[in-house]
C-alpha cells in the first residue's frame, strides 16, 4: 500500500491484465470444447495440472523453462489424444450427465496419478533467467514475468481467433458445431474435427499450466482450484461463448487486480462476486443464448 496513486493504478492495471490473461488461458480451452462439441469436460483442469507437473520435471531435468514451455504442452496433448481415443469420444453424443461422470472419474485418476509420480508436496518454480526481475515505472514495481504472461495470452488469443474465424479449418469446425450432418455429408470426417477441437482445448490448458507455475507454484489441489475459476468464467460468460469468457476473465482480472490492493483478505471471494453480479443482470451469462440443457 506504499506509494501514491499513479503507481497504485499502474500496479493494479498490470495485475488486472495478468489475471485476465491467466483466467482466460485456462477457461478458453473449456469454452472452445463446450461451444464446439457440447462436451462438458471436468477433467480440463486436470490436463492443466498435468502439464504444470510435466513442465516442472522438464525444467528440473534440463534447467530450461523454455524447453518446458515448448515440450510439456505437446506431451500433454499426446496424453489427451490417448484419453480422447479411449474414453472421451465414446460420449460426444451422450448428454451432459455421462460426460460429467466420466470426466469426474478421469480427473480422479489424473489427480491420484500425479500424486503417485510427484508426491504430495507443493513445488515452486522460478521464472526463467531474464524474466525473473522487476522493472519500475512511475514508482510502481512490476514483475517482468507478468508482462511475459500477458504476451503469451495475447499471442494465443490472437492465434485462436485467427484459427476459428480466419481459416478454412475454423470454418469447418464452426459448421460442425451447428450442422454436423451437413459437414459429414460434404465429406469431412466429423471424428477428426472433434478430436482436433478437443486437442486444441487440451493444448490451451497445458500452456496455461506451464505458464502459471512460476506465479502460483504447483500443488496437488491446483486442478480443483482452477476448475472452480474456470467454471465461474465459463458460466458468467455464457456457456460455450468465447467472447463471453474473454470479457468475464477481464472483469475478474479487474476485480482481482484492483480489489487485491485494498481488500486482499477477501480476494478469494472475488470470483463469486463477479459471478453473482453478472448473473443478476444477465441470467444466461454475458453472451449466453441457451440454457445449456
Amino acid at each position, binding site marked *: 500500500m506504499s506509494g501514491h496513486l499513479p503507481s497504485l493504478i499502474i500496479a493494479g492495471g498490470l495485475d488486472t491484465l495478468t489475471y485476465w490473461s491467466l483466467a482466460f488461458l485456462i477457461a478458453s480451452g473449456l469454452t472452445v470444447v463446450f461451444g464446439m462439441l457440447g462436451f462438458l469436460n471436468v477433467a480440463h483442469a486436470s490436463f492443466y495440472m498435468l502439464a504444470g507437473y510435466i513442465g516442472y520435471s522438464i525444467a528440473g531435468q534440463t534447467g530450461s523453462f523454455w524447453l518446458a514451455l515448448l515440450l510439456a504442452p505437446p506431451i500433454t496433448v499426446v496424453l489427451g489424444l490417448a484419453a480422447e481415443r479411449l*474414453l472421451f469420444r465414446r460420449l460426444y453424443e451422450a448428454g*451432459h450427465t455421462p460426460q*460429467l461422470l466420466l470426466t469426474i472419474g478421469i480427473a*480422479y*485418476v489424473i489427480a491420484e496419478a500425479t500424486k503417485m509420480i510427484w508426491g504430495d508436496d507443493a513445488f515452486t518454480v522460478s521464472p526463467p533467467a531474464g524474466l525473473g526481475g522487476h522493472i519500475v515505472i512511475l514508482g510502481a514495481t512490476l514483475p517482468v514475468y507478468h508482462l511475459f504472461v500477458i504476451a503469451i495470452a495475447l499471442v494465443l488469443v490472437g492465434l485462436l481467433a485467427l484459427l476459428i474465424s480466419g481459416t478454412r479449418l475454423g470454418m469447418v469446425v464452426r459448421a460442425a458445431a451447428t450442422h454436423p450432418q451437413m459437414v459429414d455429408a460434404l465429406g469431412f470426417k466429423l471424428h477428426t474435427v472433434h478430436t482436433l477441437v478437443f486437442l486444441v482445448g487440451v493444448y490451451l490448458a497445458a500452456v496455461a499450466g506451464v505458464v502459471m507455475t512460476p506465479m502460483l507454484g504447483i500443488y496437488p489441489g491446483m486442478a480443483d482450484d482452477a476448475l472452480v475459476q474456470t467454471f465461474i468464467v465459463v458460466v458468467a460468460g455464457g456457456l460455450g461463448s468465447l467472447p463471453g469468457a474473454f470479457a468475464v476473465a477481464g472483469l475478474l482480472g479487474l476485480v482481482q487486480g484492483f480489489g487485491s490492493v485494498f481488500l486482499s483478505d477477501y480476494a*478469494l471471494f472475488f470470483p463469486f462476486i463477479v459471478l453473482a453480479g453478472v448473473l443478476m443482470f444477465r*441470467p444466461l451469462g454475458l453472451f449466453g443464448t441457451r440454457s445449456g*440443457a
Partner: protein
Amino acid sequence: MTIPGKLGPALSALDAERSRGRASGAVATFALLGAIVSAPWILPQAALNDLSQAILLGLFAIGFNIIFKYSGLLSFGHAAFFGTAAYAEAMLLQAFPAVPVPVLILLAACGVGALGLLLGHICVRRSGAYFSMMTLAIGAFLYTIAFKWHAVTGGTDGLGSFMPSTLVLLPGWRLENPSIAQTYELSASFLIPLTLAVWLILERTPFGNAVQLVRQNEERAAFLGYDTHRVKLANYGLAAFVAGVAGALWAIANGFVSTDSIDLTLSTTVIIMAFIGGTGWFWGPLLGSAIYIFGSDRLSALTQHWQLWMGLAFIVLVLAFPRGIAGLVALLSSRLVERRDG
C-alpha cells in the same frame, strides 16, 4: 389436492413404472435396512466404524440423489449442505449441550434446508450442465467461507472438542461418552425413519407425483397448472435437508468437523458413491457408499494409491454399467425371471 382429469394418463405411466419390480425392490430395501439395523450385533468393532461412515455418507448420497433421480438435476456441490450442517451441529452442541440432540439435529438440518431453498433460486431455474456448474460454484463459495472464516470454523484446522461428555438424547435419557456402537445406533435411528418418510413423500404423495411429472415432461406439467420452478425448488430444499441431517450426524459421529466436510472432493465423492450403487433405485446410493467405503478400506490396505484404482473402476462402471450395481442386479434378476418363466 384434487387431481386434474388430464393427469390420468401421466399418472398411470408413473404407476406402470412403479409396479415394475416393486416386489423385488421392496425385498432389497428390507434386506438393506435390516442389515443396517442388525450390523452392531454381527460386525466387529473396527468394521462398525467403517459402517458408521458408510451409512452417513450413504444418507448424504441419498440426499444428492433426491434432486438427481426425481428432478434430473446433477448437483456438483452438494457437500455445501452436508458441511454447513456439520459446522452448525458442532456449534449448536457447544452452545446448548443440555438441549436434546434430536432437536439440535433438526435445527441444523432445517437451517440447511432453508439455505437450499434460498440458493436454489439461483440454480434450479437452469438444468443440465448449467445447473451442475452453478452448484459447483455455490459449493466452492461456501467452502471458501469455511476456509477463510477461521474465527468461527477453525479453517483447515477444523473444529474439535465440541462434543459434550454427556449427550442428551431425550429429557431424562443421556449417554455418557457414547461408544461407536451407540453413535452408530443414533445414526441408524435417524436414517431409517427419515429415508422411509422421504421415499413415501416422493413416491406416494401428490407432491411426489408433481416432482416426477415435472421431471418427465416439464412442459406438460406447466400446462397442467404446476409451478414447475417451485416444485423443483421444493425438491432441492428436501435434498438439502437430507444432506443436512447426514452432516449433523457426521459431526456427532466423528466429534470433528473441518473443511474436508464441505470441499469439492466430498461433492465428487458423493456423486461417485451414488452412481456406484445406482441412482435408479432410491436406496442405491446407500449401497454405493457402503461399497465405496469398504472397497477403499480393502484397497488402501493393498496400495497407498487406492484412489487411482477407485477412479479407474468408476470409469469402467460409468461406461459399462451406467445404472450402477443396483441396475446391474435388477437386470440380472429380470433375466433370471424371464428364463424361468420362458
